[in-house]
């Protein structure tokens, strides 16, 4: 779940060609932070993902900041998949941005280890009012070790269980609230030749959400946290094994139909199967809602339902706990000549009313406290309120595993998970393959 806006996965096409270009490009135009315009002001180079909606909100923040006399900020935007590589290469050079967009967790751990990032803990601790504006679970998720290295920059993206109201109505069922109900529902839907859960199996990150939630419901957030902290034996934790076994059982039971391994996530894939009623439910990030509004507006309006992941009977995890992308973060590089100005930018804008309202208007739900009354300005107040309440009440918000683990474990984890779903590995095989890395 690298991507906050998954429809942009289709831009992956550019990555194949862009990977090389991004690397070459960095050498020439990595840091564009030369003096520009008013020479007396410092220039802060801010790197972001390219996205028309996001960038409009971010540009407005930059404009407000530039209206003051402190420094000038400049937004540079990059296409998603090329971005991580470009960032990686830039961080290895002397051409680093001052402020950059990231996913927290594993996406910046290497940079923290290389002592490249500014520890924002003192800044946040010194200004309790600023720190207090962010929802704690989200701010916490941006920590590396005991320190804060990122400030939330946009909305929250928890994983939500979506359901097709019409399809569930047709079989006379309610969305499942417990795991046992889920399995019963799977059998009923199968009997009606409806795929219970849409799953875009060609993209292994879509499989991740299942194990994330199951491991959390069965064993609580500590089970995976151990692994994220570097203890690979955590993969053999009884709760983890149980969760992995549940997945195998669900696949064997036909929970995802038979051809899920050929289904794509991009337009015309899992989301469309779901919207057209060929599949009854879809476990996906909050961005799925935006995608449905965009691509199947009528379904989004009338047929789309959403709920939380079912409770696992006897599980140690809190049923209110969530997984997903708590948010995206802005971090500051240590080598920046303008750390003070960059910090001032984050403090002035990231929790400001104008910035937060812009996000709400764009359909995002920012991780800001006391937002309830303002969410009515959202284009979809009901959904926004659900997302907000879900995160506000969550005892923990676990970062998507592919972002939480060290980058070098990311691909093997996704590959092995795909093998588990395909039945090429069983739970113990998966655990030992992961421990062997």
């Amino acid at each position, binding site marked *: 779940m690298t991507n906050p806006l998954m429809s942009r996965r*289709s831009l992956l096409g550019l990555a*194949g060609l862009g990977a090389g270009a991004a690397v070459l490009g960095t050498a020439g135009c990595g840091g564009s932070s030369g003096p520009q315009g008013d020479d007396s002001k410092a220039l802060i180079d801010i790197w972001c993902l390219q996205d028309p909606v996001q960038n409009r909100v971010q540009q407005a923040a930059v404009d407000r900041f530039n209206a003051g006399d402190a420094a000038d900020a400049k937004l540079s935007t990059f296409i998603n998949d090329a971005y991580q590589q470009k960032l990686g290469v830039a961080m290895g050079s002397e051409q680093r941005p001052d402020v950059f967009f990231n996913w927290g967790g594993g996406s910046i751990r*290497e940079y923290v280890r290389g002592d490249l990032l500014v520890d924002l803990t003192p800044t946040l601790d010194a200004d309790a009012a600023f720190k207090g504006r962010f929802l704690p679970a989200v701010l916490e998720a941006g920590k590396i070790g005991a320190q804060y290295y990122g400030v939330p920059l946009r909305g929250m993206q928890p994983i939500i269980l979506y359901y097709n109201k019409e399809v569930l109505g047709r079989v006379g069922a309610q969305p499942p609230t417990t795991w046992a109900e889920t399995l019963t529902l799977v059998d009923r839907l199968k009997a009606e030749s409806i795929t219970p859960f849409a799953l875009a199996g*060609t993209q292994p990150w879509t499989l991740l959400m299942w194990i994330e939630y199951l491991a959390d419901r069965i064993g609580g957030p500590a089970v995976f946290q151990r692994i994220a902290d570097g203890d690979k034996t955590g993969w053999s934790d009884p709760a983890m094994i149980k969760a992995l076994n549940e997945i195998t059982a669900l696949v064997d039971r036909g929970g995802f139909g038979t051809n899920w*391994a*050929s289904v*794509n996530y991009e337009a*015309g*894939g899992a989301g469309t199967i779901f919207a057209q009623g060929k599949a009854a439910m879809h476990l996906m990030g909050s961005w799925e809602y935006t995608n449905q509004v965009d691509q199947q507006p009528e379904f989004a309006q009338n047929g789309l339902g959403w709920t939380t992941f079912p409770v696992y009977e006897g599980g140690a995890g809190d049923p209110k706990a969530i997984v997903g992308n708590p948010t995206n973060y802005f971090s500051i590089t240590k080598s920046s000549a303008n750390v003070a100005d960059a910090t001032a930018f984050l403090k002035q804008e990231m929790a400001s009313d104008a910035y937060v309202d812009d996000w709400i208007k764009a359909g995002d739900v920012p991780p800001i406290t006391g937002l309830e009354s303002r969410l009515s300005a959202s284009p979809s107040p009901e959904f926004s309120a659900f997302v907000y309440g879900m995160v506000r009440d969550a005892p923990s918000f676990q970062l998507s595993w592919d972002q939480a683990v060290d980058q070098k474990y990311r*691909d093997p984890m996704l590959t092995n998970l795909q093998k588990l779903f395909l039945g090429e590995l069983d739970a113990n095989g998966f655990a030992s393959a992961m421990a062997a890395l």
Partner: protein
Amino acid sequence: MTPGAGGDRAPRPGAVYVLPAALFFAFFAVLPLVLVALLSFTEWTGIGDPRFIGTDNWTRLAGDPLVLTSTRTTLLLMLFAWAAQTALALPLGVWAAGRQRNRAVLSAIFFLPLLLSSAAIALMWKSMLDPNFGVAAVVGPWIGVPDGNLIGTPRGALICIIITVTWQFVPFHTLLYQGAARNIPAVLYDAARMDGANRWQSFLRVTLPQLRNTIVTSSVLMLVGSLTYFETILLLTGGGPGDSTYVLPFLMYQAAFERSEMGYAAAIATGLVLLGTLLSLAIVRFSGFSRMRSTLEGM
């Protein structure tokens, strides 16, 4: 005129003529190659300075099960892609070498896939292979896969990649064969006909032998080229399902840009260069291409 008779006395370009190209080659090809080879003896995340670790990356390479899987897949892909492309491109090229008008039009249409970028081709095939909304839903049942799960099984994914690259590259090789087939003197066919050869016999006894050098050239391009299939795999299957379509360039990409293991990626890259070089040398040596005999001998 005997071949080469006047050539020796003709003014030859001196070594200095080759200097710009040689410098360019040294700077942009040889130097990076040497640097990558050096990098393969270091540990480097791309941040800070590379740390020399001796042959650790190479030891790891030798013991990495994924390298073994990827090499096997790379070789399988190479072999089957070569066979499929040659089996199509050769007859197509020979057919297209005819002079009728409709052939020119059809040849131009056949040529289209080559004009598309690999990324566009991969994405197009990807949506065609979708079991619910793609052609796979229609074609699947015909070939015994009722649920259209064509790209979702390890073997199916590999076959899909072979079909995709074949579709993409056959036009280019067809063009090579077309050019070569047009160069075959008509007098050879006339002679064959006078000897009583039918169409099939003249194809077998005249066309094929005359195309020998083209077959070698085309095969080298296909085989060495298949070592670089990357964007198709990245976009079509992402190496999956599981690790069933991992190939060496994909492994290298992942090591370098997704896991930030530049040293290890450099070792894989160096291995690939060695493999490619050995392969070209082997083909050239065993095909007799190095002797550069004229196919028009005896004329």
